Every structure is written in C-alpha cells, then in structure tokens.
C-alpha cells in the first residue's frame, strides 16, 4: 500500500507533469472514470497558472501573439511549478524562459520587455513612504555624506536593455498599432518607479543610472559617485544626490555599517 507521501508524489506528477496516474488508478474512486476526475485538478493547475502568467505579462502577448504567449506559459507552468502559495511572486524566471522558446529569436527584445513588465508589476503594488526633503540634508556634515547609505522607496527598480523597450511598452499601453514601426537596437538605462497602482518609466543618462542603481544596490553615496565618475568624468555627485532627493525617491540616510 502506498504511503500518503507516495500518493501525493504521484498525484503531483499527474497534475504537473501530465503523467498517467499509473499505480494510483486502483486507489481512485469516483465517477465512471476516476482518472478523468483527477484530470480536473490537472486542468485547474494548468489553466489557473497559465492565466496568471498571461495576466502578468500582457505586453508579451501583444508583442508575440496569443498563440506563442499561451504555449510558452503552458510550457513554463509544466516545467516550473510555483514554489510558494502567493501567485503574485510566480513568474520571475518567465522572461528568461520566454527567450529560450523556439521562435523567440525573431523577437530579441522580448525577454527585456517581459523583465520590464515584471518590474512594472512589482512597483505598481508598492507603497511609498514620506520622502526626505532636501532641507534634511542640512543636518548632515557634508564631509560625512560619501560614507552614508540611502534607503530608497520600495517601488523603485533599475534595469538596462539593448533595445528601447520603454518605447515598446508605451506603444502597448497606448494601444497603438502603427502600420510601420521602426524599432532599432539602442542601449537604454531605465528607472521604473511606482506605488499604489501607478507607475512611471524614465530613461536615465548612463552616469545618472549608474549612480542611482548603485545607491539602490546598497553601496555608499561615495562609492556610487565613484562608479558614476568612471562613466562620465563631468558627473556631479552633489547635484545627482539633490535630484534623487528632490524626486522623492529617498526615504532615509543611514550611517554605514560596511560597504558593499
């Protein structure tokens, strides 16, 4: 007789991997065809998670077509079951999976677009906090600033792409369907900010992006400034810090423990 663990392992395979219930069948009861009844759970697993991915990455469907997107989502659901019960967390690896699918080579920017959608989804459910004001800097000795860390709003992400995917997603959001759309490779550095159902995508100059993403990554203001200056010798860290604070993106300035 199979243990509960063995039964659940076989049901797991029948639900996710589409394996025949096999040795499970003699144990099942219900209806004329108990295997068909078990398949109701397989269908629910497949349909509910496929729907969740399509809802989470609508621009991918817009770009690649419903057929491609649905087939990719179904394959992902079979290959990569969720690890946690919060489906909002499901799909972080989906952009990379999309890029590995046959046919994805004709859309080399699809992965980056999907990653941008993932970030947009995350920042849109964030909650922003009261930002620091520029005046609050006055209480900090300027000589100490390079050693300080900044805590940024939680609804903030930084990403780079080799295609102007921000333009692409704007096309999607505007529901535009131009007869001809010239889309050429171009490096972009993007800041995605959002909270409480809203989001905004901004393209940053490279040094500004390096500074902000380094600060977001947890390094000190001084280290972030050095990285930005490596990109652009005329970069002004003081002005960059003021711009960051003025944009309402900083919620705290902390003393450093260790530098990243």
């Amino acid at each position, binding site marked *: 007789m199979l*243990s509960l*663990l063995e039964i659940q*392992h076989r049901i797991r395979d029948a639900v*996710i991997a589409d394996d025949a219930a096999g040795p499970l069948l003699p144990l099942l009861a*219900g209806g004329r065809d108990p295997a068909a009844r078990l398949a109701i759970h397989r269908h629910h697993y497949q349909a509910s998670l496929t729907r969740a991915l399509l809802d989470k990455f609508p621009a991918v469907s817009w770009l690649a077509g419903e057929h491609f997107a649905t087939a990719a989502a179904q394959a992902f659901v079979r290959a990569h079951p*969720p*690890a946690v*019960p919060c489906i909002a967390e499901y799909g972080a690896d989906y952009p990379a999976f999309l890029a590995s699918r046959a046919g994805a080579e004709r859309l080399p920017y699809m992965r980056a677009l999907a990653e941008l959608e993932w970030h947009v989804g995350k920042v849109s*459910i964030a909650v922003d906090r009261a930002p620091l004001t520029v005046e609050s800097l006055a209480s900090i000795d300027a000589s100490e600033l390079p050693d300080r860390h900044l805590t940024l709003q939680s609804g903030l992400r930084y990403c780079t792409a080799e295609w102007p995917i921000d333009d692409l997603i704007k096309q999607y959001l505007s529901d535009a369907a131009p007869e001809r759309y010239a889309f050429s490779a171009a490096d972009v550095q993007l800041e995605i900010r959002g909270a409480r159902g809203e989001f905004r995508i901004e393209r940053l100059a490279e040094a500004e992006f390096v500074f902000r993403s380094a600060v977001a990554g947890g390094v000190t203001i001084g280290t972030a400034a050095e990285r930005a200056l490596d990109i652009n010798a005329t970069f002004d860290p003081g002005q960059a810090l003021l711009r960051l604070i003025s944009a309402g993106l900083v919620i705290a300035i902390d003393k450093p423990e260790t530098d990243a």
Partner: protein
Amino acid sequence: MALSRVRAMPTASGAGLRLPHLTDVVATRPSAAWFEIHPENFLTNPHAAELLVDIARDYLISVHSVGVSIGSASGIDRLHLARVQALIDQIDPIFVSGHLAWSTHAGEYLNDLLPMPYTRETLRIVSAHVDEVQDALGREYLVENPSSYVGFSTSTMTEVEFLSELVHRTGCRLLCDVSNIYLSAHNLGSDRDRYIADLPADAIAELHLGGFTPEPEEGGGEVLIDTHGSRIAEPVWAFYSRALKRFGPKPTLIEWDNDVPALDVILAETARADAVSQSTFAPKPSHALAS
C-alpha cells in the same frame, strides 16, 4: 489543544473580499456584516495589505488561507505560515481557516486543493499539522470540508468521521462549506443529508456558499466543478436551509473568486443568505382550530 480567541461573530452573512473590490470598499464603506480574505492575495502585495488594514478598522475580517496545506505529507510551509501570522497580527481577524486538503509537495505549490485518502496515517499527519498551525497562530483553526471530484478506495473512514476525529484530537473547529457538501455528494454519489446529520454541529463556526459549474462527462452525466464563478445554485439554497436547521444560525460566507462581478452582486447573495436564514428560523404561524 483548544485555544479560544473567538470573538462575537454576527450570524449575518459576509462576502469574500477580492482584490478588484478593495478600493471600492475603502472608498464607499458598503453595508456588509464582515469580509473574508485569502491572505495569499495580500502577503506580497503591500498596496493591497495597506487597503486591507484600513478596511479591518471598520469590518470584521475572517482569514481563509489556501496555502497552509495541512494535508501535505511532506510537511507544511512554515515560512508561509509565519507570513500569514504576520498579516493576522495586523488585522486581528475573527476567524482563521483553511482546507482539509493539500496543495504543497516537497517545495512546490500546486495551486489547487488536492484530495487525499481518509486513513489513520492521513489523520495522524493532518492532526499534527493542525496542532502546529494552532500553536503557531495561538488560536483555533477552522478546517473546511473540501470539494471533491475523486475519492480513494483505500479510505478507511468517511470524510465526516475524519473531520469529527480531527476535531476531537486537535480542538480545531470546522468551516462547513455547504456547497462543497452538495457538490461532493453529487460527484461521488454520497448522501448529503447524512453528511450534515453526522457532522459535529457544535464544532461548526462558519459556513461557506459558492457557485459551481456543471460540466458534461464522457459517457453521460455531469460533474460539478467548484469554480466560485457564479451565483449560488437554486438547489443549494434549499440544502443550505436544511443545514441551518441542523447547525443553527451560523455566519455564512458567499465566495466568488472567478469572473468576479461588482460587489453589489455578491452583497445581494449575502442578503439572500440572510433571508434564507431568517425564514428558516422564523416562527411558524399557528392555526387556531375551531373546536
């Protein structure tokens, strides 16, 4: 163990609170006795959690988890349980409940409430998990009877016997899903009236009602799918009245999780549940017989 933190809960009906209705409820404060939420919709959604905390100031909340998975032989997800506890700490719900089912297996979440045989082994595992959940939460856990499409020939006890023994061993209470009893009895050919007759009425803290979808089966007949995507079926209302007669007035939740309509539609179903309850317990007019 029997931990009791159950506050006074109205016997009026409540509504499942889903993400599309959060901002409406915050803005309009509709007339509703209470709401039930799935914590999994809020644990990784700070904006939704913020709105929920606001709503919890004015409404009683019941927390109904779909991810604790007390039936998993590979163990419950303790990290998830801790996250649910953190949410509970913020909103102080009136009830916390989950399903007699399993949904996680060896680190994977199967996004469904899956069946298991009712055996001594299963009872031992589920009882241990209910004890663990109640210890972690510091309160009674309500266990819901599942919707079933398939059973096990290896079961050595009925679902009611299993639930009754679970209550006896753990001190948990029951969330009786009336629609699930109706649906499972249809799908598995069991006696639904016998089910409510044998269920320990004293242990029942809450009732559920939800819509289901009939689907034709190969070879004839139909299977009822627990879709929670429609109004309560008419025969279920009559069965609900019989269940109330057996259990007494209980807070009843209207579940609607798919094709979610405007909140008014769901609240209209709660009003109907209240009307059924009132008519079930209304004094019957007596006739003066002429002598």
